[in-house]
């Protein structure tokens, strides 16, 4: 099997969808991560700061998840129709978790009793953690392969739950926590920033450890993965990815141990996530649901792809433009005295 394919609309849609999912992962990743870090910072002042660091943008971040779901249904309806029943429990758990942590952004400020505040703080943490875990489990379950018969899922209700999917679940939660810590390094300064810088070092190590563990386990899941990573000449195409991961990891360690350039760890963390994404993509390409369904099997007819493609070409740059503007408006360090009650 060769990595070279003719570039057609289906490939374009697969890349576009992968891009949307990556954007989702890094954006909601850092705000879910902040929720995951909540229990480590019990003081109300820290928690207010942490939440205010993402309050103006979380909603836009989560919209990429809707695009992921809607885009999958539109561009690869068969994949959508197989994946969601196959991953029913983790998907439903993720959705319910997102309900809790999403409303916590508003409800937390409306609670007038200490118990109420405590409850929504717990909801923010629990929801963020469970959503991250469920997303990681989903990733693992996809990688390990899904049983399909005809045009429907043919496996059992607990097929998704394996040691490997639990590993990816915890890995994603740790990675999100790391992104969250890096975002807070970017948004805070002085004494407020310090604990998050320390935490980012630790979480960076943990994340890189998980990346190594998942990378080592993945080739053993499917023969195709093994061939892709460990046989010549496919290896030549894949090998630069782990090398780049190692380089980025070193740069991260440097940026987190040296003061200054507070934006750098976050940008490097985004790159790290991008490389992981690329690595996973290399493993499963050109499958959308390993081991049987390729992107061409699952693709919507050309007429659907073209219609949406025109819209995406015009609209996505505009969306990225005003999303960047919204981030720009709320740029700079968070002032702990403003918006702190």
């Amino acid at each position, binding site marked *: 099997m060769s990595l070279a394919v003719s570039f057609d609309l289906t490939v374009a849609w697969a890349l576009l969808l992968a891009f949307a999912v990556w954007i989702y992962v890094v954006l909601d990743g850092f705000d879910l991560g902040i929720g995951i870090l909540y229990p480590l910072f019990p003081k109300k002042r820290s928690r*207010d700061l942490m*939440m205010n660091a993402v*309050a*103006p943008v979380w*909603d*836009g971040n*989560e*919209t990429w998840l*809707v*695009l992921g*779901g*809607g885009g999958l*249904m*539109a*561009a690869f*309806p*068969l994949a*959508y*129709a197989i*994946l*969601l*029943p196959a991953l*029913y429990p983790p*998907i*439903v758990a993720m*959705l*319910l978790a*997102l*309900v*809790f942590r*999403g*409303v916590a*952004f*508003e409800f*937390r*400020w*409306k*609670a*007038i009793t200490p118990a109420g505040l405590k409850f929504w703080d717990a909801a923010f943490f629990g929801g963020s953690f469970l959503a991250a875990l469920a997303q990681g489990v989903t990733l693992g379950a996809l990688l390990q392969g899904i049983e399909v018969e005809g*045009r*429907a899922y043919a496996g059992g209700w607990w097929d998704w739950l394996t040691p490997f999917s639990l590993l990816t679940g915890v890995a994603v939660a740790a990675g999100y926590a790391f992104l969250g810590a890096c975002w807070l390094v970017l948004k805070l300064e002085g004494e407020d920033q310090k604990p998050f810088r320390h935490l980012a070092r630790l979480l960076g190590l943990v994340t890189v450890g998980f990346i190594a563990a998942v990378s080592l386990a993945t080739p053993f899941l499917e023969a195709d993965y093994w061939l892709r990573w460990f046989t010549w000449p496919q290896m030549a195409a894949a090998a630069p990815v782990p090398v780049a991961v190692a380089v980025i990891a070193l740069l991260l360690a440097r940026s987190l141990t040296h003061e200054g350039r507070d934006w750098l760890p976050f940008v490097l963390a985004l790159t790290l996530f991008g490389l992981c994404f690329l690595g996973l993509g290399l493993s499963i390409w050109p499958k959308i649901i390993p081991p049987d369904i390729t992107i061409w099997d699952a693709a*919507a*007819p050309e*007429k*659907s792809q073209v*219609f*949406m493609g025109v*819209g*995406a070409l015009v*609209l996505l740059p505009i969306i990225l433009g*005003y*999303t960047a*503007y*919204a981030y720009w*408006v*709320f740029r700079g360090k968070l002032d702990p*005295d*403003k*918006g702190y*009650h």
Partner: protein
Amino acid sequence: MDTFLGFEAVLLARMQFAFTVAFHFIFPAFSIGLASYLAVLNALWIRSGDRIWLRLFNYWVKIFAVVFAMGVVSGIVMSYQFGTNWSVFSDRAGPVIGPLMAYEVMTAFFLEAGFLGIMLFGREKVGDGLHMVATAMVAIGTAISATWILSVNSWMHTPQGHVIGENGQFLPADWIEIIFNPSFPYRLAHALTAAYLTTAFVVGGVGAWHLLRGNHDNRGVRRMFSMAMWMAAVVAPLQIVIGDAHGLNTLEHQPAKVMAMEGHFESHPDGAPLILFGIPDQAAGEMRYSVEIPKLSSLILKHDLNAPLAGLDTIPDDEEPPVAVVFWAFRIMVGIGFLMLGVGAWSLWARWRGRLYDSPWLLRAAVAMGPSGFVAVTAGWFTTEVGRQPYTIYGLLRTADSASPLDAAAVGASLIAFICVYFAVFGAGVVYILRLMAHPPERGEGDAEDIPGPIRSGGMHTPEDVTS
């Protein structure tokens, strides 16, 4: 047959979809209208410089933030419901409805979410002008969103512009025909108007409540009540006209639904009666204890007293929608519509006599009608969706053939989880909203004079501020 607590998987999946979408629908029904109202208030503030508009904006924007957050999280659930519980439908209809929903995300959701942060927290950072742009973008986004999703929904009622492929998929043939399918313009107009009416009655109810509680001299309270009553007086009659047109369109394309709405089990060759009330007995195929006005139904539907109207006796049993749900939901919706019309007219009369703010019974009626829009839109949704049964794509794909290959236990367990979480979370949300509504717009509504320093947090207000 595989069941859970006595229910089959398909029925549980229907219950889950009905529950999650009915809950979700409540929030956009309010936020579509409220976003436009906020844009109007903001524009009035910028034009006139009268602080009262800013005060009203800041009062309602806090409520909007809570409603919008609940709308977003319940909406994310919807974008996955199609796949989790209706995977066969998604596979078959995905090529047609998927792109329309992707357009909804790309043209509306990002617009709303991207500018919401600036609308809520950004006035001091970007200035009044750009803040107005952001507010308008959020309002426009809500309307664009409604347009796409109602196009999808309408296509499921009146499908056209597609061909059926070898693998059973609905494949797009003509996008213009798909988007502008026959019921779309009517449904869109009816639903958007419903959202505006719903919001008008909530705003009016809150205003009336504070007027009754002795806030007569509060300009903010008077303005919001007056604006809401204008809206009710103008839009309620308009909605009845639009609803009538929508009904005629339904008669043309989905006659069985109209038969169920009207409760016409029998055909009437020389003028059908309007059944006001009755107990539908679908098994026996008759309306029991009916109270009816002769020939009026023919007059409404055909504009002719003696026009013949076919009944459900002309429809095969396995093509009939469940009559009782449709019949009653329709009556609830129409009943509320006419009550709204009544309150609107009453307010005009009181206004003409210069007693708009001093008519206790009008104010009480407005308070009572405050939440009525939510009941009406939910009833309307049940009328049209249950009326489409036994199909998901009318006439082409049966509901029973649309569901995921799931065990009843899986669907049942997740249904219970959704019910528990939604009631807990959205129940708390309603309490917080009512708490915000319980104090009148006053000083401390976040105008720059009243509060030291800019405000930029998810809180926008301390609890003390709300209760003081």
